[in-house]
């Protein structure tokens, strides 16, 4: 796999790779390593593989309490120059749609751009089209009700060609970037929020540490990093951050003050 660009899964968790590749091989009726290697030469198969190795979001507004906190407390407190809300490893779009929806409902500035990045072009296409997994509908509805205490979720859903999509006015602020975030990051200094929930679960400890290091560096001072409720945060990296909410796993990158002696001017 390493021989092909964008296919470096070396430091992914071994058991995760075993599960996903076994599942794919069964569905594709691949029984021998040679068959797999032959199929790997085909870009269409590699795209299928990249898609398979992205685990779908389970639903919109997973952990409603987190979304409530983001809406009421942390999004309004983003650094003044923040313009980009980055989801470095988005899969089926639900986290991006949830973010777009709470920004809309809280009437927060529409100047925020939601940047959803995925290794898979197919995933990017689906997210840009606002495609929603129909199987998650009931759960989305129930989570939204927990979050907002009302039944308004369905007004944000439109039917297009027999499929459910998030409404166009919500998805207009979502932009996609194709490529793995470990090898391709957005070149911007205005990233005020990074949602990296339940992604590190599929990395080995070394890659998880590397990924978090990279994300912390990409975040602007004063910006927030949100992990999944059970994600592993290495102690040395946690020391660099302010723990804003330990239950919902919200961290802030401290704002560094300029040294009073003005070293930076020399």
């Amino acid at each position, binding site marked *: 796999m390493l021989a092909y660009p964008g296919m470096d899964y070396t430091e992914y968790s071994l*058991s995760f790779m075993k*599960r996903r590749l076994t599942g794919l091989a069964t569905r594709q009726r691949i029984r021998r390593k040679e068959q797999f290697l032959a199929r790997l030469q085909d870009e269409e198969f590699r795209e299928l593989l990249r898609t398979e190795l992205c685990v779908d*979001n389970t639903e919109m507004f*997973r*952990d409603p309490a987190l979304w409530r906190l983001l809406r009421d407390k942390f999004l309004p407190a983003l650094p003044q120059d923040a313009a980009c809300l980055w989801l470095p490893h988005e899969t089926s779009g639900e986290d991006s749609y949830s973010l777009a929806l709470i920004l809309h409902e809280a009437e927060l500035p529409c100047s925020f751009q939601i940047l959803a990045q995925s290794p898979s072009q197919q995933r990017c296409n689906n997210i840009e089209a606002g495609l929603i997994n129909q199987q998650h509908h009931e759960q989305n509805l129930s*989570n939204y009700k927990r979050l907002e205490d009302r039944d308004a979720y369905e007004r944000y859903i439109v039917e297009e060609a027999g499929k459910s999509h998030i409404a166009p006015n919500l998805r207009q602020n979502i932009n996609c970037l194709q490529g793995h975030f470990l090898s391709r990051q957005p070149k911007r200094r205005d990233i005020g929020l990074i949602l990296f929930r339940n992604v*590190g*679960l599929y990395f080995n400890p070394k890659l998880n540490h590397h990924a978090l290091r990279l994300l912390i560096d990409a975040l602007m001072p004063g910006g927030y990093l949100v992990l*999944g409720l*059970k994600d592993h945060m290495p102690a040395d990296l946690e020391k660099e951050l302010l723990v804003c909410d330990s239950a919902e796993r919200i961290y802030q990158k401290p704002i560094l003050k300029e040294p009073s002696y003005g070293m930076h001017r020399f």
Partner: protein
Amino acid sequence: MECTDFKLIVVGGSAGSFSVVSHILAGLRPDFKLPIVLSLHRLKHVRSGLVEGLSLKSKLRVIEPNDKEKLQQNTVYLAPANYHLFVELDGTVALSTEESHNHSRPSIDHTLGSAAYAYRDKLLGILLTGANRDGAAGMKEIADNKGFTIVQDPLSCDIDTMPKEALKLFRPDRLMNPEDILHFLNALPG
């Protein structure tokens, strides 16, 4: 088979299993060393309550682990709501939000199957009362990997679907009621 040299205990259960697990944890010796992993079907979106409920009577520490946490002695690990819990070869926990299995996340099959692969004949698997087939295949994997298997006697179950599904797949080392399971565990060395 007879084996007492276990390194890990995994327990699966669904409907009716809370009271059984609670009873077992309350009755275990306070110096019971083997780590215990619990994979119990639970409401996906109720995060709190279960670990606190089990902790009330347990003499051992009961926690919901974070991802990549190392399994330790004298500790009970409960699979968190809406996450699968896998046991890795290096004795750590791997959580996952992958697809539901048998309509369940956590899936008992996933926990038991991964532990069977990682611990082989050093694993003790226990399947309790429950209302679906999840857990049956995982228990068979434990048996296939030469682990020791105990299935709750269907006659002592609130709902016997889960043990009966397991019994269709393999013959366990023991068929026991909850009280006997407790005695068996307390008789283990260490």
